[in-house]
């Protein structure tokens, strides 16, 4: 280990946005844990209110500030860290480090960059320089040229020939490739590209649209030892951003020779750049003639590395953190699951298939262009794990739907020309359209030609249709149920096909011994296993999972990320899990979001990656017999169905149904309170605003600012009113009382609502008290009223704080518009300054 390193500044990922969600924060938490274990003091800069990582560092090591070069510089000059870590902060962190390198701040302050050597940072962020390095390694590269003006761009594109791809150099956001079919498209793309590039430069390159996209995730130590963690195969071809593509791991349509060539190339590149930690290498493959290109090298945590970690059970971020400290892979011990020593060196071998399907925000932002292309539009994703490709695909589809009933929407209303058009220009319903096209008799060759998707997947989809047909035409037949479940159909889907209720389906299953078998998610394909903590279900012979304890709590994760309060739900879930542990419960989480911090294995005793749907939940209940089921946020359908079956369900924060009372839809002041049986604890009074000023509806309130614009007398009036109101209206949990003000007149009460998930995260940061844990303790009946009475919250504090929602409009290429709470993709907080932050 490198003893020179005592203090490391970690650059956080900032607010979640299209391109990164909770995976950066989840990785950050693991890195912090590893650093602490090695006696290192981690400092963290981030302004994401939904960061769990911020909860895991001491307040003195926490810098709640926007991730900018200036802010990072100030921290460096004040705190003198020995090293800085850019690998859990996404593209933004890389861009900040690059700036600090260029202006000499890192060298002047003797700060070492971990993971990525200085020159490599410059190279990976500049396609031109990347190409020249790749050329040196002997990797085939794509014809490309850098341009700084529109004229140059037009000339270069003409000489390469359309279609071309435009990539901004050193972009501030993750929008890496724009496909242009014509000069008009080029001009628009280059103009946008210049605005994203720190150098106002773009690269124009030959289009490789239609190629197969494959990604490898590897780790490397400072000695040059490397382990290949996973190969990720994009089912959709290049032309659809890999973040918007369906992805499968392990790779299913690559030959050994192809795969090994990619492995050798990735390792050679890692050596050339001298990376340590985790690297995600992107390739484009042409099948005929066989040829491949390296399209991107990302030596840091991202959605690819989190998928690889989730699919294999290999704790990538934790291992990488140790490697940054110059530990060798031979020395890193994974959590104690194997009987041999060099556990971090085991190359994962899988006996299951994982499929990732993205989730798009088009329901909440209906005016966005819904076509999928080279610019990423999805805001989340969900995975399905199975023992067959069919099972993995079906589970992923089931989890990616918005309907709570575990049924798939029908595409049968589409006309044939719409089908053709959507095959060529895919939209978010792509997978359902592919199924519909097959159902209508399109041939595999035809579909491969139109979509550039490997024929293997059409064979699989056709098989799904065949199974569906068989199940549908054999209502109540145990054999049909067995086949359906075996290939991944949910009980809800089968109930719908048979026109019966789900309990009928389940009782046929029980009566005929068609029971789920849980299989471990671990990296040795069953060869060296002791006891994994991650499981998925299938319907086979052997079940490996058994009841955890007689005091288990089951927590239902939120599944794939969507716009709205979901951005904070994962944070909320993770904090809940910590408290449940502290309260002495064993915990089981069900979730399907590979980026979720709440799925990190150290948070829970058991993780089950299965659709969070009624049938699957009841399977888990039958296995675990939980004493309690917690639902973070609310999922009305599931909650209702579970309660109807007499399961002990607790919704946190306490349910909204029947608890909101609104006199008008307009408010300017919010007073958040924590209410127990005997006490009312005022937490924060704040101004409630829209993104552009006064909010005319509650749905527009996406900005909270404290202290509230009320005079001391008005504040007293608020508090008096709140006490009075809550004395007569029995509530527990967290509530927000809403008011309007007019000059120095007494505030006018306009309503009450449960405190939003996002607001709770904000309140945690403002008060330094973890209100999520309070809510959990309250739900468990563990609240100590004496302690509540002693809570010392300075409601009259003049410390300034603000939380502001962020929106995906720019990335969805929409003009600025007034954002609604249902459209928030993330949020940022700031303290001490009310100045509007520069819009990046």
């Amino acid at each position: 280990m490198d003893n020179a390193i005592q203090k490391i500044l970690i650059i956080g990922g900032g607010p979640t946005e299209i391109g990164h969600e909770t995976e950066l924060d989840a990785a950050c938490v693991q890195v912090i844990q590893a650093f602490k274990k090695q006696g290192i003091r981690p400092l963290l800069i981030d302004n994401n209110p939904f960061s769990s990582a911020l909860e895991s560092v001491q307040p003195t090591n926490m810098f709640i500030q926007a991730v900018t070069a200036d802010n990072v510089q100030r921290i460096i000059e004040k705190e003198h860290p020995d090293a800085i870590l850019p690998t859990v902060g996404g593209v933004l962190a890389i861009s900040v480090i690059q700036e600090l390198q260029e202006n000499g701040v890192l060298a002047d302050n003797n700060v070492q960059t971990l993971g990525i050597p200085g020159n490599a940072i410059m190279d990976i962020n500049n396609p031109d320089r990347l190409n020249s390095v790749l050329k040196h390694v002997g990797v085939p590269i794509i014809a490309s040229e850098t341009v700084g003006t529109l004229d140059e761009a037009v000339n270069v594109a003409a000489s390469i020939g359309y279609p071309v791809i435009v990539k901004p150099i050193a972009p501030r956001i993750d929008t890496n490739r724009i496909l242009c079919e014509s000069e008009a498209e080029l001009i628009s793309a280059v103009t946008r590209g210049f605005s994203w590039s720190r150098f106002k430069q773009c690269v124009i390159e030959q289009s490789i649209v239609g190629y197969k996209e494959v990604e490898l995730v590897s780790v490397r130590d400072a000695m040059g030892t490397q382990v290949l963690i996973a190969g990720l195969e994009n089912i959709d071809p290049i032309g659809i951003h890999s973040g918007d593509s369906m992805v499968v791991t392990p790779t299913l349509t690559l030959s050994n020779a192809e795969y090994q060539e990619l492995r050798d190339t990735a390792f050679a590149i890692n050596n050339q750049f001298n990376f340590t930690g985790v690297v995600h290498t992107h390739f484009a493959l042409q099948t005929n003639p066989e040829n491949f290109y390296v399209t991107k090298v990302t030596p840091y945590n991202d959605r690819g590395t989190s998928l690889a970690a989730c699919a294999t059970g290999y704790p990538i971020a934790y291992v990488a953190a140790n490697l940054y400290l110059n530990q060798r892979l031979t020395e890193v011990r994974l959590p104690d699951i194997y009987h041999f020593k060099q556990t971090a060196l085991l190359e994962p071998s899988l006996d299951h298939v994982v499929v990732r399907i993205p989730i798009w925000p088009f329901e909440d932002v209906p005016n966005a262009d819904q076509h999928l292309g080279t610019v990423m539009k999805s805001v989340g994703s969900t995975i399905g794990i199975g023992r067959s490709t069919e099972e993995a695909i079906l589970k992923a589809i089931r989890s990616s739907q918005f309907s709570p009933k575990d049924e798939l929407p029908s595409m049968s209303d589409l006309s044939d020309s719409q089908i053709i058009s959507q095959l060529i220009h895919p939209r978010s319903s792509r997978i359902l359209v592919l199924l519909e096209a097959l159902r209508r008799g399109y041939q595999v060759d035809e579909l491969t030609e139109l979509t550039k998707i490997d024929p293997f997947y059409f064979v699989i989809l056709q098989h799904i249709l065949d199974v569906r047909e068989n199940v549908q035409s054999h209502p109540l037949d145990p054999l049909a149920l067995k086949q359906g479940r075996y290939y991944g159909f949910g009980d809800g889907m089968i109930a719908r096909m048979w026109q019966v209720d789900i309990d009928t389906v389940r009782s046929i299953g029980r009566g005929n011994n068609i029971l789920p078998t849980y299989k471990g998610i671990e990296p040795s394909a069953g060869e060296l296993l002791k006891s994994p903590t991650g499981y998925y279900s299938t319907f086979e012979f052997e079940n490996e999972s058994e009841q955890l304890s007689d005091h288990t709590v089951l927590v239902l994760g939120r599944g794939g990320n969507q716009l709205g309060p979901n951005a904070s739900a994962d944070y909320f879930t993770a904090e809940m899990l910590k408290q449940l542990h502290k309260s002495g419960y064993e915990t089981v989480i069900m979730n399907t979001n590979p980026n979720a911090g709440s799925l990190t294995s150290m948070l829970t005793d058991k993780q089950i990656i299965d659709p969070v749907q009624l049938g699957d939940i009841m399977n888990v209940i039958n296995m675990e017999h939980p004493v309690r089921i917690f639902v973070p946020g609310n999922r009305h359908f599931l909650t209702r169905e579970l309660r109807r079956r007499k399961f002990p369900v607790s919704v946190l924060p306490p349910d909204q149904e029947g608890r909101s009372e609104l006199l008008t839809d307009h408010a300017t002041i919010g007073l958040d309170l924590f209410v127990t049986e005997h006490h009312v604890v005022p937490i924060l009074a704040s101004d409630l605003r829209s993104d552009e000023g006064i909010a005319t509806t509650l749905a527009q309130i996406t900005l909270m600012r404290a202290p509230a614009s009320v005079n001391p007398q008005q504040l007293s009036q608020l508090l008096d009113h709140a006490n009075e109101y809550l004395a007569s209206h029995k509530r527990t949990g967290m509530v927000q009382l809403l008011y309007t003000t007019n000059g120095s007149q007494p505030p006018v009460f306009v309503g009450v609502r449960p405190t939003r998930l996002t607001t709770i995260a904000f309140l945690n940061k403002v008060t330094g008290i973890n209100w999520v844990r309070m809510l959990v303790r309250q739900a468990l009946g563990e609240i100590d009223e004496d302690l509540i009475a002693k809570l010392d919250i300075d409601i009259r504090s003049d410390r300034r704080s603000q939380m502001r929602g962020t929106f995906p409009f720019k990335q969805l290429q929409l003009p600025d518009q007034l954002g609604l709470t249902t459209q928030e993709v993330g949020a940022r907080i700031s303290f001490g300054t009310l100045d509007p932050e520069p819009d990046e």
Partner: protein
Amino acid sequence: MAQRFLILEDGSAYPGIGFGAGATTTGEVVFNTSMLGYQEIVTNQIYHNQIIVFSQPIIGSIGISHDSYESILPTAKGMVVRDVTDISKNRQRSLSLDQFLKQHNIPGISGIDTRHLIRQLQQTGTIKGSIVDVADDHAFDQLHATVLTNQQVAQVATPRPYPNPNQGYNVVVIDFGLKHGILRQLSKRDCNVTVLPWDATAQDVINLDPDGVLLSTGPGSPLDLPESVLDMIRTIEERIPLFAIGLGHELFALANGSEVKKLKLAHHGANHPIRTIITNEIIYATEGQEYVVDPDSVDRDRLITTYVDLVDGSIQGLRHRDYPAFSVQFFPDGAPGPNDSVDLFDEFMETMGTRE
């Protein structure tokens, strides 16, 4: 597709769906944890008389390809898989895994809980099994009564010499059940190869005046081969650069006084880290072994250990102290598996180049 069964010596029966040939076969049941390369695996002659359980859940998804044969006439006794897809990708669209297995009379069985089976095999160790239509007493009686040959090498090795002409070093390959990856690597390095049958004598080899000799991979136990093979090795290693792989490595160890023992459980996979002792470098390579060199028996005055598997501690490579002769237990040619150790063939070239 009809229901068929995999039955094991311990009395267990696994129902599944048949694919490939409809033959009833018996063999040793082994499992392979490689992530890809089913064609290379099933055509590797080390699986002669064996039924292979695949941990990779999806088999058949890329069909059968002309450049993935490790032998032209595979002699495995079966494939046991969770899921098989019937796809042809060659130019005629004419050869899927299913058709290929039918042509070679190899049965397959899908729909098996292979993860469970693999965990089971860890308990029982390598065990005999059959793929049958009906799992009745008769089938089990047949299974118990079947005596598997110990003449595996003679069954699969070439009976006659054949050349693979080129302009470079003159290399003699002794075929114990040669996997084609070895020929491909020698061919890439322009070697003028003559393949000799497994029972070639030292004089047969010397007559061809080779620059180097390669002892190939192959099936079965090195202990079942006659002493004459070891004599041949002892004579050759003194005079000609020697490179031995797999079964060849086990024979090389035996010829130099070491003992070889049977593993309770065969190991087939590419995920174990292997330490290169001299450089401390970690590599990955496909291992496919049922036998292992007993580390306590290695005569340190004659042999140096060069590679060690970090998971099970097994010796994976040896080098002779006095002669230009070295060996590896794993497969440096990949096919399938990583190419991390492919430079061993370059080392072999160098050894031949420095020969007086």
